[in-house]
């Protein structure tokens, strides 16, 4: 049976990614990060509440960890960390195709550029979502261990509510990863150079957005990175979950459209 032509780029990209080094780093790194973040969450959770600043995530409390959604609180905290990693991964993929010159080889077999690059991005996104499932499972296991160490009761974690909370946390993380991934791919497509793209992406989504956040209160409501952080944290006081998801998705769609138009038009010269 032959796969539909539109899926060929996805399958071809999965062949590229099927290397131990790539699979290992992606499927190993995300779960490892989730375990670390979970451990830190439990280690630093406070016994008493402090009111949060606008735009900041609410403080994590030991009593909150005992609730049904406490089981995956560590995983939820990971996803903002994951953002940068996912951005770098997708950026390296798309910009690397230009730098290496492999894009021109691939384009002779699939000249529909949007279909080719779209398929490649989808393949990496599927792999990232799979890695996030592993991360969720690893983080839950770590949570049970950590709960034992800090005497957090876990009765609520085995309820249907806990399962639902885990599902919600996963979807938020998957959504934020898609956002960061698409931004990374769009940036890589626009700049066509891994070092330049990394410079721009890491500077903006790392320190710059947070520095500007200090100076301008609107930053938390309008900057894509801060909005995606808000999504993965389930909303902030400055921008709730629904608003963050909507505005964030609109911003991502905007940059993806710009990158797609550029990809269709621009000469492939590498």
């Amino acid at each position, binding site marked *: 049976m032959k796969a539909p032509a539109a899926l060929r780029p996805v*399958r071809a990209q999965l062949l590229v990614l099927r290397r131990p080094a790539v699979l290992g780093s992606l499927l190993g790194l995300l779960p490892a990060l989730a375990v670390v973040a979970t451990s830190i969450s439990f280690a630093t959770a406070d016994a008493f509440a402090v009111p949060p600043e606008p735009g900041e995530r609410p403080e994590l409390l030991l009593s909150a960890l005992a609730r049904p959604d406490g089981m995956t609180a560590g995983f939820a905290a990971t996803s903002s960390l994951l953002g940068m990693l996912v951005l770098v991964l997708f950026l390296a993929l798309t910009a690397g195709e230009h730098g*290496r010159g*492999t894009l021109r080889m*691939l384009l002779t077999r*699939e*000249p529909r550029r949007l279909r080719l690059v779209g398929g490649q991005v989808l393949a990496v996104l599927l792999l990232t979502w799979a890695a996030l499932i592993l991360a969720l499972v690893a983080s839950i296991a770590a949570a049970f261990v950590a709960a034992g160490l800090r005497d957090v009761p876990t009765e609520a974690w085995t309820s249907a509510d806990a399962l639902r909370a885990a599902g919600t946390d996963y979807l938020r993380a998957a959504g934020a990863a898609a956002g960061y991934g698409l931004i990374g791919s769009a940036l890589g497509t626009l700049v066509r150079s891994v070092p330049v793209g990394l410079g721009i992406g890491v500077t903006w989504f790392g320190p710059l957005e947070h520095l500007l956040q200090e100076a301008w209160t609107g930053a938390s409501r309008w900057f894509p990175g801060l909005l995606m952080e808000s999504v993965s944290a389930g909303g902030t006081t400055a921008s709730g979950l629904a608003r963050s998801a909507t505005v964030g998705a609109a911003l991502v769609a905007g940059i993806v459209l710009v990158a797609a138009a550029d990809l269709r038009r621009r000469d*492939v010269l590498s």
Partner: protein
Amino acid sequence: MTKELIVETTSLTKAYRGRTVVDGLDLALPAGVVCGFVGPNGAGKSTTLRMLLGLVRPTSGSGWVLGHDLSRPQDYLPDVGALIEAPAFYPGLSGRANLRVLATLGGTPAARVAEVLERVGLAERADDAYKTYSLGMKQRLGIAAALLPRPRLLVLDEPTNGLDPQGIRDMRGLLRSLADDGPTVLVSSHLLGEVQQACDWLVMVEAGRLVWSGPTAQLLTGSEAVLGCEHAGDLPRLAALLEARALQVRRVGNRLHAGPLTGDDVLPGLNRAAAEIGITLSELRRQSATLEEQYGTLLADSLAGSLR
């Protein structure tokens, strides 16, 4: 007689930031030929080939490959195999895995991968990582990739570039054998000696402009006559006779070189005309100018043309 054209362009032009690098190129490549696409470095060969493959958008002009418009490469690239400039593959993947990626992408049956690896002589090293390959092996993998779709048109951009003499010999042999398989081949080179032997069709470009195109044999018949006569004193009269027939004449020792000859029937006519004015020729033969000499004149002509 209208022959099917595999590649056709009219006034194909590409400018980068206002600088024209391919300048109103008219190409017409008949089916079944092995065509050498020749010009010095920077002549615009790679840019032209990139336009034919949908990688670079023409600034103006139009073109057709296998009968399809250049603006829709998805219509003809399934039947085109190409290697543009240096081969580029994923360094961490083996040669075989790299070809599998391309075969999957193009919907080529997986069994074809082993066939083309065998064809270019890479079967034994096919499972080693691409980054461990020598330059010649990388080049051969690039050719294998171009062969994957069983192309009707094979486009190769300077496939011997950067190879050592042995690598160049191997590559030439491979190219000759590829042509036997039947596809129309378009191979670029800045080295004329290479295409003179291997190609039956030539397209010559310089500074983005077409200088000459046509069957290699036709270019080669643009050769000269070498004449010697019994009495050296007759040489001036013989020269005048040749000049009257619109030939360029130069004296080399006791012989005259006259050209260019246009057809095969010129020599007997010259012999008769000389006899009629009482000159007995001691020597009369045709000498093919090497392509390199021809090329030099063509380039000089076009240069002079652009200065005028």
